[in-house]
């Protein structure tokens, strides 16, 4: 909390009222997306709040260098990701070594469409309805951080590959492979939770 708890005061000299108003509007506009992303990254509400505060402090510090009319959303997300990596550098490094078997593109879709439920109902809604919010959150939280960052940016925030490559400072090919593996793992986890849930509910 200490690092993020500093006030804005020490780096605001010479800022005019207009800059502050523009910045305030930015806070209003991007607070929710940044917070929910921080929550996906850290897994804890208080850590997410600290991370968002740190992000807005850093952003304010370099607001002079921010060009009006450029991609404010991508700029703020880049600052958020860097703040996260700085804080959790160790946990960020580890997952790169995770070796994962290729389970195929449509592991989940294949299983769902091959299920008896599907052949009975003719659509995958029975499975879809069984996916709980807590399953989605848990499945995302279990992805290695580099995969999770790519998946969250693409699938929740809707950034393009090029934007993600700039936000995470990685080549396009790496964006695609992280997304691919992240999505595979996410689907595998969702299938497992859905199966557990089914057993528990006694179907």
């Amino acid at each position, binding site marked *: 909390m200490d690092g993020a708890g500093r006030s804005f005061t020490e780096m605001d000299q010479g800022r005019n009222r207009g800059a502050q108003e523009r910045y305030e509007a930015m806070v209003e506009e991007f607070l929710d997306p940044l917070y929910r992303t921080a929550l996906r990254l850290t897994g804890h509400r208080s850590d997410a*709040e600290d991370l968002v505060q740190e992000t807005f402090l850093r952003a304010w510090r370099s607001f002079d260098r921010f060009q009006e009319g450029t991609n404010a959303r991508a700029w703020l997300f880049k600052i958020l990701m860097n703040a996260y990596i700085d804080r959790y550098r160790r946990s960020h490094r580890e997952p790169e070594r995770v070796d994962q078997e290729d389970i195929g593109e449509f592991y989940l879709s294949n299983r769902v469409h091959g299920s008896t439920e599907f052949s009975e109902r003719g659509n995958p809604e029975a499975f879809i309805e069984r996916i709980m919010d807590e399953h989605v959150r848990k499945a995302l939280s279990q992805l290695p951080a580099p995969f999770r960052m790519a998946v*969250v940016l693409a699938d929740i925030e809707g950034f393009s590959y090029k934007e993600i490559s700039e936000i995470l400072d990685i080549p396009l090919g790496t964006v695609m492979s992280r997304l691919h593996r992240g999505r595979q793992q996410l689907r595998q986890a969702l299938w497992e939770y859905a199966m557990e849930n089914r057993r528990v509910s006694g179907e």
Partner: protein
Amino acid sequence: MDCEQVIRLLWTWLDRELEVEVSQEVEEHVRACLRCKEHADFERRLREIIQTCCKKDKAPAGLRARLLALLAESSHGGDALSGH
């Protein structure tokens, strides 16, 4: 384009990140092939579910207030500092 190629490109296609010509080929195949269409529809639906879930998380009011207060405080301090 056959199913195997389409399956390999499907996520990139759904992400709208394929070249125009390739994207059109995938689209034509998906329109004609029930199996690939099922995968595509399912993936779209799944993404919707994931988005809806995660977008429910809103920043706490306290955080918003704290950020705006820090900013206001900074402008206050800034005025004082600008005098020297």
